């Protein structure tokens, strides 16, 4: 059973073998490290770039225009801010050229909190990412979704920003990637580089198969009828856990919708669930002022006001300049399981 970093690696390997991926690059992406989270370890077309985010994104854009379907990595999303106009250019190149140029490229980058990352390794980028119109933005919460979204992202003719929740890169899912060995020790022996000298090491790739998660399609991570939680990334498994516990306790039937794609987002799925439950919480870890969840909340009020039984909620990060290192600070700044539990119970309890 692959973890998320291995799943991304397997998808990129599939892309190299079957989808024309020839250039995978970024800081420490090639040998010997294969990425600081090992998401590119052992890949035959992965190479190390200079420490230069603007150059990485510019290179990806140029390669995209040349039809090379590049996959580039920015080591942490926290480092991407100095490249904001390059990102804007990725998003607007097709529109700006009157549709004459397609921009098939994937930009992957670890995002969010949960690894004691302090001020510059804990950023969420959702709000800025979703303002880069023309760019698609995805963020998986399971290894299988990561695998399927990466394959879809590689095939897409638009730029795709692939946000990897840092806290989940080592987590395993419940489902196998088509073609991977069931035993995770076997997979580890096949594709993880040994410690020490790696100069002669080569991975033995399992015969993984094509599997797409369509961009723009949410997944019901937990079915329910009394309230809806719309979330993604690190908070999706937490919401699912809370929903499971509430269900076991008979405290309420909560539907968890894992968006998987932030842009375009699956409004039809959100709408269907809210129509069913009449109660909704938008949950993410981006800061409060101009939050992506606020957009979804506003659209809910506009289009589904009369479907709502109680006021819709947003639970998100607090609007501080950064996330403090001490767990006391981090846990108070971005939503934790106890916060999700509290707010969902409150949502269920409010009289209609």
């Amino acid at each position: 059973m692959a973890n998320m970093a291995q799943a991304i690696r397997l998808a990129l390997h599939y892309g190299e073998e079957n989808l024309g991926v020839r250039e995978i690059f970024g800081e420490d992406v090639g040998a010997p490290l294969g990425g600081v989270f090992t998401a590119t370890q052992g890949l035959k077309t992965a190479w190390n770039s200079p420490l230069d985010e603007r150059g990485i994104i510019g290179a990806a854009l140029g390669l995209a225009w040349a039809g090379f379907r590049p996959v580039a990595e920015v080591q942490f999303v926290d480092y991407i801010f100095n490249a904001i106009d390059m990102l804007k250019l990725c998003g607007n190149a097709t529109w700006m050229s009157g549709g004459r140029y397609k921009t098939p490229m994937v930009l992957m980058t670890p995002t969010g909190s949960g690894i004691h990352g302090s001020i510059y390794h804990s950023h969420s980028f959702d709000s800025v990412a979703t303002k880069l119109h023309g760019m698609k933005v995805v963020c998986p919460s399971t290894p299988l979704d990561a695998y399927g979204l990466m394959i879809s992202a590689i095939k897409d003719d638009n730029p795709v920003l692939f946000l990897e929740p840092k806290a989940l890169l080592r987590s395993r899912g419940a489902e196998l990637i088509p073609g991977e060995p069931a035993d995770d020790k076997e997979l580890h022996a096949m594709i993880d580089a040994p410690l020490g000298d790696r100069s002669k090491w080569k991975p033995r790739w399992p015969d993984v198969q094509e599997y797409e998660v369509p961009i723009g399609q949410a997944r019901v991570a937990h079915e329910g009828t009394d309230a809806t939680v719309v979330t993604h990334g690190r908070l999706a498994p937490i919401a699912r856990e809370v929903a499971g516990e509430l269900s076991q306790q008979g405290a309420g039937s909560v539907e968890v919708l894992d968006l998987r794609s932030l842009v375009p987002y699956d409004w039809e799925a959100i709408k269907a669930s809210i129509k069913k439950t009449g109660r909704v919480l938008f949950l993410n870890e981006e800061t409060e002022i101009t939050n992506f969840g606020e957009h979804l909340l506003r659209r809910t009020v506009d289009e589904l006001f009369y479907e709502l039984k109680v006021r819709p909620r947003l639970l998100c990060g607090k609007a501080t300049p950064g996330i403090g290192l001490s767990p006391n600070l981090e846990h108070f700044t971005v939503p934790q399981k106890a916060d999700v539990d509290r707010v969902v119970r409150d949502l269920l309890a409010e009289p209609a």
Partner: protein
Amino acid sequence: MGNPSVAAPKSADPYLAFGSEKLLRLHDLMVKARVLEERLIKMSKSGDGFFWIGGPGEEGFNVPLGLQVKKGQGVQYDYLHLHYRSSAIMLALGAPVIDDIRQMRSVATDPYSKGRNFVNHPAVPDWNIVPVSPTIETQYSTSIGTGIAQAHTKTDAITIVNGGDGGTAEGDFHSCLVWANRPALPLPILIVVVNNGYAISTPEPTQHGERSIADWGKVFGMPSATVDGNDVVASWDAVAKAMAYVRKERKPYLLEAKCSRLYGHSSSSGANRIPEADCIQLLEAKMIERGLASKEDFEKVWHANQEEIDRAHQQVKQEPFPEPETIWEDVYSEGLPPSYPTKGGS
């Protein structure tokens, strides 16, 4: 280059050696570019378009560059990462004048951007002209990408990036130098900087302590040169030499061209004629001096180009503006998903 003397033997005079036929071809394109830019300025000032920015004064360098491009689509042809002063390169490649006029008037028929972008911001996939962006210097970062594509392809095609002296202060210029000179994979990029001495209103010497922009090449041990961009033949030769190196060696070359900026930065500085050296006047004087053409010959060229641009302008005036709903085209290459928010609020 100094002033070639009429009495010098033919072989020693670069203009005589270059020949009248080629010079007349260069001259015609330079005039076409100048007349076009002057028409665009007039359109901007008369409300027949909005902001103007362009390249009058750079024709003496840009036409020789454009004529030496290996033109076509895909990695086997040269990629061009241009900026908003590159109209003479476009015309030398064969772009019709009418398309720039269409972009100036922001009509629906603007083939470069459907009425969305400023004038002189082309995008032509058939000729590897990647989208020109209003952002300063980002083209030096994107040139890395097509450079990598060509470094990984068996070809003599190269990537050409073009920008100004002011932009060299941006990180993208240095990104381009660093990436093009990576020992792991040197890139076949002709890195051009047109030095007109100003960043909008700020004189270059007040902000740049480098002895010359071309000197950046020395840091990497890469070949570089500075050429007088007002000298057409010197420019032709400098471009030819630089291109030959990049095509053969598959490594970068830094070429700085000193050019005039004859109408200032853009509309923002008034777009009025400035008394600087004019590459077209210089070329005409040299050709007349050598008996390669007469004043009357040149007048015919100016007149013919004026007429061509008049006709094109008249035609564009008849063309429709874009329908408002076309803003939704090309957000994504496959079109918008049905539930994409399109109301602009509640």
